[in-house]
């Protein structure tokens, strides 16, 4: 036996495991965990690829008084601009003054890109003879106390009516489909373009966010000191950097917390059952070594770990420790050396690892790539675990057993007290389950479940507040149309417009906003150049008329800026097929509805379905080039897929395993007993889910194959022990009961530690599997021996 102090070995392997965890890169792209062929998932991926700016943080401000929120927003924007090392630019809802100073370029480009007949309307309004009428109308509106205040205000700054876009142009505008201030003015958002770090790296994003949060907090305390009571505002941070930092951070925490919890609880369990510290330290070292090796392999195979796969580590440790326990107990009972140990229990461990690995590999049949990834990692880890235990832990177990021969100890596995109720329970529990289904709510998949949503996420809370405040009750859903060229994009948009129109007519959609006229249109721009040139020829006359009508110099600012932008755009159009807005604000506004990336062009629109969760509207409007980022219908789509998965995967699996059991047992009675164990365990789970808040969802329902596998495993072990026992059946049952109790508890600890995971799906999977494994253990240890004796006509 090695003379290295066990504590050193644990520390060494612990450090190795910590280093492995630190080396792992976590991917926060949640859509990669979902079925890619669903239009909803494609929509999320495209929304993220084209329209999400990794360095764009959204700062929300909520207060009571609109004026206070507005002032606070302006003040915070200035404060943030004062930190150029962190902030490249801040965009906020334009005040009319800002619109005059900064909106001219965008307005000029919108006209240049408009359908020629729409621009013709403007040209007519500004033609000699009619332009004075246009200016007079603006003046009347500016003076009219009963005109809508915004209309009067804009008219006062826009005597030539340049901001009076056609409805068609306005309808697609980013400002209307993506407002930055609530109708009552008490909520506003700022878009903050970050700088200074690589925002693709969530750890860098975390650091940046921490520094920016300090800057915002500093401003907030200053504002609070100067503006008490009703003038107070609250801020929130959301958007891509906030989500990335949060998801990445939570994943690291989940992995560390679940592994630490599992190690601690399994150690306590081991000590309670075996009262030995030395083998425990070696067992811990082996577990940490398995974790480090599996993380290394995971890094090679997958590169990044997803929010779901972080759960594999705890499950793996709960499963792998069982092999160590089997070796340890066998060594103590028999006194075998390592080679003999491998000969006696090696095949069992190998086949158990293979069976468990197969059950986890079966998760590849799930429609959720994230779940499949987790299953693959556990399968790899279980095989690594079996090898590590057989070849590294076995010599340690053998050496320890030689020095400390078996002397009993620990609780007995006796379950005699359950004898009177064992047989009635075999009937009562399935009946109760059937009654629960009939009387209570039939077990169903939670319709609103989003498996990858992070619990208690401040970024998500801020995002939800933003949705509620800016979009009210109407749930506008992003729609993304893609193409290879601008011309194709316009064709696809037209086709989408027709499908959307039909869906609106049939009542599937309530409304839609298609940014058709905001999408760069080379043909329109080339045709409009001449008309714009003609308007520019009248620049001095038009400005003279504005002055003569009584408008001040401030009243001509917007017109001046538009004329200047047109001059620049026409100059550029001489050498280019297409002009995009050049200045920061105009380009940023266009980027909200149109992006060019990876050789593709994409347009962003919005639709409001009548019933978001009903997928008929998705099927009616989506195509190969049109997708929607709809979380509501995604839940429905996932549930549909999962139901299909269950019948496609689970039922054949049950049939195959039943056949295998029949071959293994060659006894209909034992086959019946194994199936009875599964039926009773399933009944208990049904009762639990019917009468407690625990619910099935599209993620934890895949705990069923896992539970099915462990349930069979437990029943096989116990039935073989009972068969093997002969005259000493009671002793064999006791030894096996103790082993199964340890295995059941350690696996339940592994799964149960995931209850703390931040992702809803992983957490619920952990809870269901922990409960299910405990139920399997109870049935196999507490009830099965009595049923076995009764069915085989043996005395208890």
């Amino acid at each position: 036996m090695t003379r290295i102090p066990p504590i050193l070995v644990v520390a060494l392997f612990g450090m190795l495991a910590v280093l492995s965890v630190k080396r792992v890169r976590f991917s926060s792209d949640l859509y990669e965990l979902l079925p890619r062929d669903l239009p909803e998932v494609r929509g999320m991926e495209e929304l993220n690829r084209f329209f999400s700016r990794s360095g764009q943080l959204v700062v929300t401000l909520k207060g009571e008084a609109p004026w206070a929120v507005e002032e606070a927003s302006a003040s915070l924007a200035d404060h943030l601009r004062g930190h150029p090392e962190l902030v490249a630019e801040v965009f906020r809802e334009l005040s009319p003054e800002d619109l005059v100073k900064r909106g001219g370029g965008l307005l000029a480009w919108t006209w240049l890109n408009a359908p020629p007949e729409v621009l013709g309307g403007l040209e007519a309004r500004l033609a000699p003879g009619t332009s004075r009428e246009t200016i007079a109308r603006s003046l009347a509106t500016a003076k009219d106390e009963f005109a809508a205040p915004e209309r009067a205000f804009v008219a006062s700054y826009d005597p030539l009516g340049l901001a009076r876009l056609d409805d068609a142009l306005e309808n697609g505008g980013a400002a209307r489909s993506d407002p930055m201030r609530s109708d009552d003015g008490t909520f506003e958002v700022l878009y903050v373009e970050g700088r200074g770090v690589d925002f693709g790296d969530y750890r860098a994003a975390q650091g940046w966010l921490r520094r920016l949060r300090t800057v915002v907090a500093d401003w907030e305390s200053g504002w609070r000191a100067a503006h008490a009571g009703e003038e107070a505002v609250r801020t929130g941070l959301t958007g891509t950097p906030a989500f990335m930092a949060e998801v990445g951070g939570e994943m690291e925490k989940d992995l560390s917390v679940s592994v630490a919890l599992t190690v601690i609880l399994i150690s306590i369990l081991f000590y309670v059952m075996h009262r030995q510290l030395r083998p425990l330290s070696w067992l811990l070292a082996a577990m940490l070594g398995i974790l480090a090796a599996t993380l290394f392999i995971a890094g090679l195979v997958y590169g990044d770990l997803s929010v779901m796969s972080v759960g594999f580590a705890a499950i793996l440790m709960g499963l792998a420790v069982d092999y160590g326990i089997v070796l340890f107990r066998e060594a103590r009972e028999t006194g075998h050396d390592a080679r003999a140990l491998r000969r006696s229990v090696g095949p069992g461990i190998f086949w158990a690892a293979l069976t468990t690995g197969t059950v986890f590999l079966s998760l590849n049949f799930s429609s959720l790539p994230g779940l499949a990834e987790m299953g693959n990692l556990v399968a790899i880890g279980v095989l690594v675990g079996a090898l590590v235990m057989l070849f590294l832990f076995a010599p340690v177990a053998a050496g320890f057993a030689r020095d400390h021969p078996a002397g009993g100890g620990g609780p007995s596995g006796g379950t005699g007290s359950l004898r009177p109720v064992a047989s009635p329970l075999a009937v009562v529990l399935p009946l109760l389950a059937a009654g629960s289904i009939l009387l209570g709510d039939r077990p169903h998949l939670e319709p609103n479940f989003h498996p990858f949503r992070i619990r208690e996420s401040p970024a998500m809370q801020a995002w939800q507040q933003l949705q509620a405040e800016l979009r009210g009750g109407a749930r506008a859903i992003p729609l993304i149309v893609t193409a290879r060229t601008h011309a194709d994009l316009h064709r696809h948009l037209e086709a989408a417009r027709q499908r959307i129109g039909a869906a609106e007519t049939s009542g599937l959609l309530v409304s839609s906003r298609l940014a058709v006229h905001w999408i760069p249109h080379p043909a329109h721009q080339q045709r409009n150049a001449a008309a714009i040139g003609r308007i520019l020829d009248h620049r001095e006359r038009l400005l003279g008329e504005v002055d003569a009508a009584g408008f001040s110099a401030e009243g001509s600012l917007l017109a001046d800026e538009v004329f200047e932008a047109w001059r620049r755009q026409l100059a550029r159009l001489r050498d280019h097929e297409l002009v995009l807005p050049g200045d920061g604000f105009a380009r940023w506004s266009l980027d909200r509805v149109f992006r060019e990336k990876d050789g593709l062009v994409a347009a962003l629109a919005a639709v409001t379905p009548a019933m978001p969760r009903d997928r008929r509207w998705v099927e009616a409007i989506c195509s190969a080039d049109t997708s929607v980022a709809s979380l509501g219908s995604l839940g429905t789509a996932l549930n549909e897929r999962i139901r299909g998965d269950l019948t496609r995967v689970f039922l054949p699996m049950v049939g195959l395993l039943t056949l295998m059991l029949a071959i293994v047992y060659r006894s209909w009675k034992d086959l019946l007993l194994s199936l009875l164990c599964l039926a009773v365990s399933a009944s208990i789970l049904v009762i639990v889910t019917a009468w407690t808040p625990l619910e099935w969802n599209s993620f934890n329902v895949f705990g069923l194959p896992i539970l099915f596998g462990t349930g069979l495993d437990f029943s096989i072990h116990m039935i073989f022990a009972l068969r093997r026992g002969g005259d000493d059946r009671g002793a064999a049952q006791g030894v096996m009961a103790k082993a199964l109790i340890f295995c059941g508890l350690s696996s339940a600890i592994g799964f149960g530690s995931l209850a703390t995971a931040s992702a809803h799906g992983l957490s619920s999977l952990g809870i269901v599997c922990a409960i299910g494994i405990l139920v399997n253990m109870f049935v196999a240890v507490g009830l099965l021996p009595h049923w076995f004796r009764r069915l085989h006509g043996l005395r208890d």
Partner: protein
Amino acid sequence: MRPRPRSALAGIILACLPGTGAAQSGSGVVERWLETNAGAGKLRVEFSQTRKINTLKVPIREKGVLWIDHQADRLRWQAGDPPKTIVIRHGGEILIVRPDQKKFERRAAGGAATPGVAALAGGFPRNMEEFERKYRLHDVKVRKDSCRIMAQPRGQAGRAVRSFTFVVGREDHRLRAVEIVFRDGSTQSIAFTKVEPGANIPPGIFNVDLSGYEAAQF
């Protein structure tokens, strides 16, 4: 009412100054002004309005008359002589009439209009509860012969407004003027040149014959 800390402090300082008393505290001034409104069942007010818009070279000046019948919850506002615009509010609806254009529009009271007109068309608050529902009190400044109640309209009406000030007489606490400063620096002031509480309101003043008028959206 729960005065804001700054208002409460201002009240204490004012109370300590010679010639001012507790009655001149922020909430005291507002309450006294509201009392003058509470007593007036019927009211006729002549006013003169000046709007300075940044983008226009010349300020817009108009004179007008306002009739209020609180019991019947009716109001008539008209500007110009002969009137260019007539506004009649009855309950929750207002009727805007442009006699020179032969056009009218009906809309819900509290809808789009400049905050000054909205304040007039909505009628002045007559008790603290109504005042607090419509306005947020910022400060009260006592001058030589007037008190300035600086407030902020709540909700949509307050969006473009930087400050909204009721000017009331220091002795009689009757409303003398309303001064509004907008976010872009434009201003609107309405001076009440003649106020007749308990005025005899001519019958039919709240009715306008709309024959020959067409509905419009101003």
